[in-house]
């Protein structure tokens, strides 16, 4: 584990878990919210890598606005998904 911090490792594993969960959930609203969690973990990882501007953008855009867009769409189409 040369140079790769344990913190990074935890976040990466959590990110994979969040991605899988958000794709497996049948309820699209919950999936959107879990996708917001995924974006937020990604933002933490970038802040830790020293890419503060990217992390800031991701926090505002990925975890905030794109989750809102997804929820807005889910409310206007069917909420249940077949897979």
């Amino acid at each position: 584990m040369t140079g790769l911090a344990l913190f990074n490792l935890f976040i990466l594993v959590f990110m994979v878990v969040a991605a899988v969960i958000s794709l497996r959930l049948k309820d699209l609203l919950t999936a959107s919210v879990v996708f917001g969690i995924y974006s937020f973990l990604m933002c933490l990882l970038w802040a830790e890598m020293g890419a503060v501007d990217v992390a800031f953008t991701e926090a505002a855009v990925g975890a905030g606005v794109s989750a809102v867009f997804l929820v807005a769409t889910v409310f206007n189409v069917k909420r249940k998904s077949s897979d």
Partner: protein
Amino acid sequence: MKKVALAVTLFIGALLLYAAKDFSAWGDLQSPASASPVSKHFIADTGVDTEVPNMVTAVLADYRGFDTMFETVVIFIAGIAIIAILRCTGADADSPALERESDVATEPDLIVTNTVRLLIPVIQLFAFYVLAHGHVSPGGGFQGGVIMGASFILVALAWDLPKAMERLSVDRAVMLAGVGILIYAGIGLLSMLLGGEFLDYAELSHVLPVSPEMARYHAMLGVEIGVAFTVTAVMFAIYANLSTRGRLAGGL
């Protein structure tokens, strides 16, 4: 279908993992990206060229200003495309598929609206801070614009869309998005008229009472303001259209 997909994914995964061993190790100082003269120049000379402490802002708005300008245009076009896709016309306007499965309560909540009333000025002030302070701290036009747009989205979420459209109607948002790009291109054209090349901000020192480096510093702020205009307007326009299926009426 699923098996084919799995096979394709695993094949691509194997290829990528095979390639991964050729990448440089984590944080390697001699990796091609870090050792390239371009990256070194950006780090070493940003302070000399533009006097901006935040290299990301300097590279974004100055060295790669042309790129950023057309990224902004892409966002603008995306906003226009969404309005065009979702605009209700003719028989679509009263099609039964437009009814929602579950409708939300129309009455705005007292506690939520009052808290939002308190927070909106703070959020907008913070957006301006992020925009203006992007030279010395993380931030800039994109982030400030998104936060500003989010404040309008928050109004629409706490009350309903018409309340937010009193502040910023979608027509006006599209206009503002255009104004943002015009500000950006205008600064570029101004530097061209003053004898330089397109987006060569150093020429602005002929009209501003500052050195060429500080002219680049201030022109970057102007450019970021243009970006923030576009991003704010487009984010709100996208939300307004997505949440009401293009009808621009009613709540989420």
